[in-house]
């Protein structure tokens, strides 16, 4: 008997039986017994056939998995590794994917319908947020769980400036960015000495503080009622209205799509600006200092880098783009309330950055499309959507623990250009 249990089949069988027992214990209460409204109170009804099916499914499934997949010659990760393309080929494809995606984005309004363009706006907003957060988390290595705070600051700055001072979107956009980066620095100061887990907790709290203040400062922000009738952006002073606006000026028939298309190009431009600035920064001393800071803070200091300034600029710049995106969000929705700025948003943005590959600009794009697009595609599945979403994350983390695009292009070369593959460095190093 003991010998049998030590064989591969035996061990798998033992494991499967154990799993089946656990399933039985769990399901007998949660599934097996069902309450039913009867005359004179609540009655109980057995549902044992379903329990039997579930236990059987776990038994067989677990047995098959452990025999064929986990204990097999090729565990899941290896099997996936062999199906999926190698890092080098991904790198080669990557060169064409970026420009191809850009062309796709530029031409989308010409053939997309309203639904597709709305989706595009949503995805681009998250790409922009992902790129902004990438500066803080991906480049400077400062784990920020409260990024949504800057998004909220940007959105509320525009909404409040418009409400109280009647300022236009174009005046408020830079103001929103400046205010958000100011808040970024305010957050930056107390957390200068923190790293890793501690930093994450403080930033998480900061995100919540902003939300709670917005929620409770009723006289100023409208609290849970939010702010409505936020003015829409104009096209160089031309409103998108039925009479005397954009359409009349250009002598074309009025179409409500004009505004949507304009918003699409607006967020595309903002996102590209974020990308452009980040790419430029990476080649400047400050950008290199961010990356060095991510690698080793003590070494940075011993090389004469002022780590205080380096961290603060990362926070401020990342927050500024969050603020821009927030202002855009406010003008697009026309209505904002603290509910749009929950921790869930921070988590999604962070997931985009991590799944895409820390520090990778293209990775953020791919992860945004997959995640935000995936959310929409699986909308019909309702609750199962989150399950699919979770499964997707698990798969990505097994297949590519450093994110979808884990290679990092060096910022300086003497001779030939050569991307250094993430495969050379094991997980957890560097």
């Amino acid at each position, binding site marked *: 008997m003991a010998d049998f249990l030590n064989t591969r089949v035996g061990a798998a069988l033992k494991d499967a039986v154990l799993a089946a027992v656990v399933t039985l214990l769990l399901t007998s209460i949660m599934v097996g017994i069902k309450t039913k409204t009867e005359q004179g109170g609540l009655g109980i009804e057995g549902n044992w056939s379903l329990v039997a099916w579930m236990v059987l499914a776990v038994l067989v499934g677990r047995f098959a998995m452990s025999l064929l997949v986990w204990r097999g010659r090729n565990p899941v990760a290896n099997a996936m590794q062999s199906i999926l393309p190698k890092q080098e080929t991904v790198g080669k494809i990557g060169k064409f994917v970026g420009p191809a995606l850009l062309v796709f984005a530029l031409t989308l309004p010409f053939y997309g319908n309203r639904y597709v363009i709305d989706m595009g706006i949503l995805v681009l907003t998250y790409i922009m947020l992902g790129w902004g957060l990438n500066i803080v988390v991906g480049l400077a290595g400062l784990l920020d769980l409260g990024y949504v705070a800057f998004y909220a600051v940007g959105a509320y700055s525009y909404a409040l400036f418009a409400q109280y001072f009647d300022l236009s979107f174009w005046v408020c956009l830079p103001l929103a960015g400046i205010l958000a980066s100011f808040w970024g620095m305010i957050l930056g100061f107390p957390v200068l000495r923190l790293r890793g887990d501690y930093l994450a907790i403080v930033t998480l709290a900061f995100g919540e503080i902003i939300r709670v203040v917005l929620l409770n400062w009723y006289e100023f922000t409208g609290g849970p009622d939010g702010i409505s009738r936020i003015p829409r952006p104009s096209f160089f002073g031309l409103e998108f209205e039925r009479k005397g606006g954009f359409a009349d000026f250009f002598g074309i028939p009025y179409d409500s799509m004009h505004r949507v298309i304009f918003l699409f190009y607006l967020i595309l431009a903002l996102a590209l600006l974020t990308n452009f600035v980040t790419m430029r920064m990476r080649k400047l001393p400050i950008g290199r200092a961010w990356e060095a800071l991510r690698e080793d803070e003590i070494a940075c200091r011993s*090389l*004469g880098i002022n780590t205080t300034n380096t961290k603060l600029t990362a926070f401020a710049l990342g927050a500024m783009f969050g603020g821009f995106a927030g202002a855009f969000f406010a003008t697009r929705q026309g209505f904002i309330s603290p509910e749009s700025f929950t921790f869930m948003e921070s988590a999604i943005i962070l997931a985009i950055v991590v799944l895409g590959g820390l520090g990778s600009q293209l990775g953020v794009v791919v992860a945004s499309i997959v995640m935000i697009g995936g959310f929409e595609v699986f909308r019909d599945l309702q609750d199962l959507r989150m399950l699919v979403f979770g499964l997707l994350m698990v798969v990505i983390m097994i297949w590519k623990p450093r994110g979808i695009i884990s290679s990092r292009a060096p910022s300086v070369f003497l001779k030939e250009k050569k991307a250094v593959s993430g495969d050379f460095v094991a997980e957890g190093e560097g």
Partner: protein
Amino acid sequence: MSDVLLSLRGVKTYYGKIVALRGIDLDVHRGEIVTVIGANGAGKSTTMMTICGVTRAREGEIIYNGENITALPTHEIVRKSIAQSPEGRRIFGRMTVLENLQMGAAVINYAHFDEDLRMVFDLFPILEKRQSQRGGTLSGGEQQMLAIGRALMARPKLLMLDEPSLGLAPLVVKQIFEVVKELNEKQGLTVFLVEQNAYHALRLAHRGYVMINGQITMSGGGQELLSNPEVQAAYLEGGRH
């Protein structure tokens, strides 16, 4: 100005309530190689970190080039042309060799970058071959060379090395120490070396200090200490590695 480049006077450093340095006095003259040897936990690395302002001296003062640098922040101390190769090398693992070297030159704003890069590549030819590799993929010896090279990119007047021989093969240690000697002789670079490998360190250094329990117990010329029976008994027995 005297020829003393760096001097420590009565420096005391604490970790919380624990005394790490119990009043250190030492001098480094221009153009010298000075070494501090001692066992684990003697306070060698703490001495170096205190000079750089990573840990702070609670008492005493540190004078560099006629200026009191005791209370300056680390990055400003480093800008006074003190470069260090810290303990454990601390190179940037995900960045390439070239980028690592570039980080070293940041402190002098990349002045003379190409020239200095050539100099480092001539000292350590292996780094030129490895220039586009990630720092983390180098061997231990190569990483140490990179750490020293990175420090040299800042054109330091004083080079501080914390246990460059740590965990390296004897042949590599020899190679690295030869480069240090060459830098000192040809460029007149002042070197402050903290080492456990007493034999190699004392053979290289002009002068040495022996440190026990946060105090300096002996000092003298390198050869002098090397032939001192006490030093031999404590640090060199069977230790010609």
